[in-house]
């Protein structure tokens, strides 16, 4: 019966060793062992019975696929999207602070050195593109989050 355990362990080797997986593996092993025992009662040699039990059981990939389906939506969707959305808020904040500092410097230079000619407005328009574009990205991320709910 060691062969059955080894086979199931090998098939599930690529999945993380969680409690859920452990119970699932245990259940599959027990079921296969009982099946093999039934075949042996029917007159088969142990080696034969074990092989037939494994083959008759069917493809374990089917169970694994079903199992991964219930894990992935929680992990992948949640984490990755959230990370992206957090970045867009941070980016927007940074762009606002950054442009305020640059515009402040321009106003200072303008008033200190050339107080009779107001020119700081022109570069200010150019700099404002930065927070405006970041605000656009931020709004897009927020709308996607609402749609995902």
């Amino acid at each position, binding site marked *: 019966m060691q062969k059955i355990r080894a086979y199931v362990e090998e098939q599930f080797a690529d999945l993380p060793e969680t409690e859920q997986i452990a*119970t*699932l593996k*245990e*259940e*599959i*092993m*027990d*079921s*296969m*062992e*009982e*099946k093999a*025992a039934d075949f042996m009662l029917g007159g088969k040699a142990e080696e034969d019975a074990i092989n037939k039990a494994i083959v*008759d*059981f*069917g*493809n*374990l990939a*089917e*169970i694994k*696929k*079903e*199992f991964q389906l*219930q894990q992935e939506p929680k992990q992948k969707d949640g984490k990755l999207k959230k990370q992206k959305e957090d970045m867009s808020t941070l980016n927007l904040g940074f762009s606002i602070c950054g442009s305020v500092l640059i515009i402040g410097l321009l106003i200072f230079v303008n008033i200190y050195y050339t107080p009779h000619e107001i020119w700081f407005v022109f570069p200010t328009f150019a700099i404002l593109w930065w927070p405006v574009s970041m605000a656009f990205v931020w709004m897009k991320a927020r709308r996607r989050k609402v749609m995902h709910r």
Partner: protein
Amino acid sequence: MDGDKYGYQISKDIAAWTDDAFQIKEATLYAVFQRLERRELIESYQGEKSHGGKRKYYTITTLGKAYWQEAAKEWQEAKQLIDIFMEGV
């Protein structure tokens, strides 16, 4: 549908009911259990020790029974329709 059962027993019962006409693969059966359990249509619990291992028993939930009624009704309707189409064949 009589009493709680464990996986291998269910597969044997299905084969016995259908005179071996339908032998469900245990892998398919366990995949179905996963899906039904996720949708809370069935529940499982660890039974007493036997054969050196603890068996996992499955039981239908109230939600599962309601769903089963609904699905049976739908199937009857579909079957009636197909019977009409198959008349005279």
